[in-house]
């Protein structure tokens, strides 16, 4: 039957107080109601067209009722189209989402902002037939085949497939822009100007036609300039800006960009080994990788798996240099804690046993090498720590300690810093803020009582005043590193013995989640209490 069933008529009749409507009458009325409704909608569509709109609104229906000299339907005034919700269990039944509003709330709420008044703005849609690339215009398609092309194919039928080479025309302005940016990236002479350029790259619309050129440029320069640290850093900054630009559709070019990015992450040599802080570059690039995976992981399904494979290969190959390992670990840890748990933590024990001799100052005479080893160790520690931190955050039902108590403990924090942890922390500029407080130089003597103290419990709270400049803590001299290292050896032993006693307690506390409990215990074994700062304060408070 029609769209309007007779039940609807009956219900409507009841609602307006007609109780004795015979079913025959309802049956007769139903088609007529449908006809009238259609009639009104037809007029409403006319009103919509004359209002130069393509969405039907309540005012159009009112206009149609007005045309028919009928009373408009009151109470549906709305500027925009309605939002309809689907009724669950019915295929084509919708209703408007009409919430009940409390009068009191309406009266008490402050006056809403007055709507902005109508205005007219003017721009050039085209100049002599060419659309200028300004924010007011829609972004141009990157590649536009000549219009005649299609007609040509059409006429000749499917037999002859004429394909003219696709022309990619760049406007003069864009060419100049590209040249200028490339120059700035390579020359490294004026960092201030370069910063401005990056901002422009990250925000300007109309740059889309340049993306293929930029990807090409980056790939070329990365392969050419592996020894030039600053250049690489600049290039990665350019990549980040391009990723940030909301007007650029970068996805099709990702596969060209990724090799360059991965190179900057896990290459054996990036710039001068001694003079340049290539660790920073690797960390920055790791962040880029995580950004890309977050944004495009859903659309490019193979992206993350391919990336992880490359990184794991680099990580697990003992022949690769320690710097490469470092990059791989940073890259993997940037991909999230599941990746870390599955790929790093499962391989942690054998890897650490490999790393052990390098760490030992007695066995490893080359100071540079041992410094690198400690770097890798720090990266591992951080990855594992963040992973466990994320795991533990899941339990919210533990009582949290009073904040005042935490503040009392604060005074000890600076001193409580384990000296050795510095190595893991100082390089990480993009770590969560809590890590920053660790970067201060601790005193030479560690106080054992601080270990169990509440010192590391501020992990969830950013503490600005301890955020000392990191450079002061940068132990770029290898002598300092080796100095700390000898102490570390002793510390580790002590930590281990302590860990055994703690093991029981830990196991008990997290027995409801055996997995993470065990994980923590294992980490505890491997790292000693260096892992403790990563444990959220609430969990830690159980100790106290």
């Amino acid at each position: 039957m029609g769209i309007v069933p007779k039940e609807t008529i009956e219900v409507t009749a009841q609602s307006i107080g007609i109780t004795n409507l015979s079913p025959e009458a309802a049956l007769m009325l139903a088609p007529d109601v449908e006809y009238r409704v259609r009639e009104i909608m037809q007029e409403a569509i006319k009103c919509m067209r004359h209002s130069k709109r393509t969405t039907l609104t309540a005012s159009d229906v009112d206009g149609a009722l007005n045309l028919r000299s009928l009373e408009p339907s009151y109470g549906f005034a709305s500027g925009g189209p309605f939002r309809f919700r689907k009724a669950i269990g019915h295929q084509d039944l919708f209703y408007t989402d009409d919430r009940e509003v409390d009068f009191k709330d309406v009266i008490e709420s402050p006056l809403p902002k007055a709507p902005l008044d109508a205005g007219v703005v003017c721009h050039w849609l085209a100049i002599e037939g060419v659309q200028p690339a300004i924010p007011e215009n829609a972004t141009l398609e990157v590649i536009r085949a000549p219009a005649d092309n299609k007609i040509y194919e059409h006429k000749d039928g499917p037999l002859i497939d004429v394909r003219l080479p696709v022309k990619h025309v760049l406007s003069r302005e864009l060419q100049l822009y590209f040249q200028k940016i490339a120059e700035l990236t390579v020359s490294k002479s004026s960092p201030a100007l370069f910063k401005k350029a990056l901002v422009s790259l990250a925000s300007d619309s109309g740059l889309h036609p340049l993306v293929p050129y930029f990807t090409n440029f980056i790939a070329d320069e990365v392969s050419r300039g592996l020894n030039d640290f600053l250049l690489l850093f600049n290039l990665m900054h350019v990549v980040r800006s391009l990723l940030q630009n909301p007007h650029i559709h970068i996805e099709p070019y990702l596969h060209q960009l990724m090799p360059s990015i991965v190179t900057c992450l896990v290459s054996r040599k990036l710039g001068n080994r001694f003079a340049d802080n290539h660790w920073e570059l690797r960390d920055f690039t790791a962040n880029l990788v995580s950004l890309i995976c977050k944004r495009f992981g859903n659309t490019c399904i193979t992206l993350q798996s391919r990336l992880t494979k490359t990184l794991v290969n680099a990580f697990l190959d003992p022949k690769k240099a320690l710097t490469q390992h470092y990059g791989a670990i940073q890259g993997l840890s940037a991909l999230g804690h599941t990746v870390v748990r599955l790929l790093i933590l499962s391989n942690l024990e054998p890897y650490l046993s490999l790393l052990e001799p390098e760490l030992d100052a007695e066995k490893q005479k080359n100071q540079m090498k041992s410094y690198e080893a400690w770097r890798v160790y720090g990266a591992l520690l951080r990855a594992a720590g963040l992973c466990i931190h994320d795991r533990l955050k899941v339990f919210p039902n533990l009582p949290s300690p009073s904040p005042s108590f935490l503040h009392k403990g604060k005074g000890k924090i600076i001193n409580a810093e384990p000296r050795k942890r510095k190595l893991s922390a100082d390089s990480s500029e993009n770590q969560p803020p809590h890590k920053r407080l660790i970067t201060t130089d601790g005193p030479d003597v560690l106080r054992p009582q601080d270990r169990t103290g509440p010192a590391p419990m501020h992990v969830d709270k950013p503490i600005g005043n301890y955020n000392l400049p990191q450079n002061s803590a940068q132990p770029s001299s290898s002598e300092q590193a080796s100095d700390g290292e000898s102490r570390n050896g002793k510390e580790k032993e002590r930590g281990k013995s302590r860990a055994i006693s703690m093991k029981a307690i830990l196991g008990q506390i997290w027995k409801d989640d055996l997995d993470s409990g065990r994980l923590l215990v294992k980490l505890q074994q491997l790292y000693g209490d260096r892992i403790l700062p990563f444990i959220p304060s609430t969990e830690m408070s159980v100790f106290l």
Partner: protein
Amino acid sequence: MDPEQVDEFVMGYLKKKGFNSAAKHLQESLHNNNGSTFSSIDYHNDPELNKLIRSFSQSENDPSRYREGYSKLRSWGYNSLDLYKHELVRVMYPVFIHCYMDLVGKGHTQEARSFFNSFRKDHEMVHLRDLQKLGGVLAPSHLQEMEFARSLRQSKINIKICQYSYDLLLQYLHRTESTLMLGIINEHINFQVYSGQPNSASDDIEAVTIVGSFHETADHVNQKEIHWGLLEDSLEDRLEKTGGLLSDSEKGQGESKAGDMDDSKKRSAEIGKQGSSIKKLKKDKAGTATTKVARQETSTVLSSMPRVKPELAMPVMSADVEESILEDLRNRVQLSSIAMPSVSFYTFVNTHNGLNSSSISHDGSLVAGGFSDSSIKVWDMAKIGQAGSCALQDENNQTVGLNGRRNYTLLVGHSGPVYSATFSPPGDYVLSSSADTTIRLWSTKLNANLVCYKGHNHTVWDAQFSPFGHYFASCSHDRTARIWSMDRMQPLRMMAGHLSDVDCVQWHPNCNYIATGSSDKTVRLWDVQTGECVRIFIGHRSMVLSLAMSPDGRYMASGDEDGTIMMWDLSTARCITPLMGHNSCVWTLSYSGEGSLLASGSADCTVKLWDVSSSTKLTKAEEKNGNSNRLRSLRTFPTKSTPVHALRFSRRNLLFAAGAISKPSS
């Protein structure tokens, strides 16, 4: 057949039909004569009659016969030879709708509905709107009430069909004894049989439009004589007379000096940045020899055009205005497929879905918007342009303007949504039409309402000034278009004839005709002096939304709801080519000053430019070659989610566009 059996059939038939007295008479006479008189008629030996009687007696009222008959006819039609198929399939649609209406008329609502739903897919592509209308018809009373259904029932549909297809169809109908289908076809279809090969499938646009009793009248009406030439002694003529001198001195200093001086004057009226571009364009024009040639060509074309006398008393133009127009014409940029215009876009912001219409004055300096809150707002872009460059940058301040005052003129007076607001040619008046059935005249100098014209009975959809001002035309939901002059309260002429709302109106450049586009999917041309309809243009498949007349007065473009634009030759009332490309409503159309380009603006957020110059020159060669697709889309300018409401080529051929930005619904 046994005579008694026949008597039985007849008796049964009469009873079924309710002819009780006749049945009684028959019974009596059967008794009296005992069948002797009847047997004298040799009916039982006539097999045709036999069958007919049988079919009548069998199932007169059985609704399933319609479905059976139609589905058989349909499968036959679709399985016929490809050569004749499209002609035979053409017959399906009228049969389909009449079967449906028969069923509804007899009260078989349910069967009608299921019949409709099972076969509507076949016709949806071409006749979607009609089917939507008919779908609501569910009771016999609706058939009477609904104008569309009534006109379908009352009139016959013309179908052109070749002799062979016609024979095929008749043969089929007789062979299968589908008297029902035969009846419908006889009743509602008027075959125009021609000998020879069937027409190619492509040119059947005319054949599919069914508009009641139109075709006969349309053919008749379209025989009338019209004079599409430009007015004698028009400004273009005068320009040409003086043009000889000027085109020589064009290269010299005279032009550039005068031009610059005039430019500076002009610039106060137009926006600052526009002036510079005009200069730039002018340089190009002077530089390239090809455009020169083009200009000469067009001028020769223009002068060879016929000239007509005005039938209305024309308003006298003041010398100043005339001078400035002449100056504009002299400085006009020649556009062609290789010389594209610049497009300046006015974007309405913060309209909150309330902007119903917008228009741009001839020089582009004023922009008016008609709003659904009954107000009209007029922006002076020259003023905004002066203060503008800084205001453009911070968007929040921009709408407030300087000193917190609004930067537009608010015209209040209407008591219903304003559906059109247009400028008089010199830009000193605004004409607005509204749902309150009135048309109002406003002065942009005084910022006040001058006159309120009452006469229409329903919402006035559109009102347009004549090319020379003073007169204006309006069109309305009451299915009429009216001609008014500014100094009279009552309309001068009333044009009635459209079968549905008249949605848009446009003047012919010589002021002797107006064109109207309607929801009945036709465009009509009316003689202003006599008020007669002189042309009917049939071919659109949905409501006509926009019209434009070529400057030489020979062609007309019309855009519809589906995005199709049609180019019409006024003298033959034939469509030259449909311009396909837009995929949503074409709100506005505009010809460039010399008629070589057509600009169209649509709800799909694009402005398209079409090359229409080649068609106007090469029509004769074209006719020989057959209908090749000469008119082509030159450029598409996408806007940033802004449907294009209005377009206007200035006299210097700068294209202005306007539209309200719509936030993408996410």
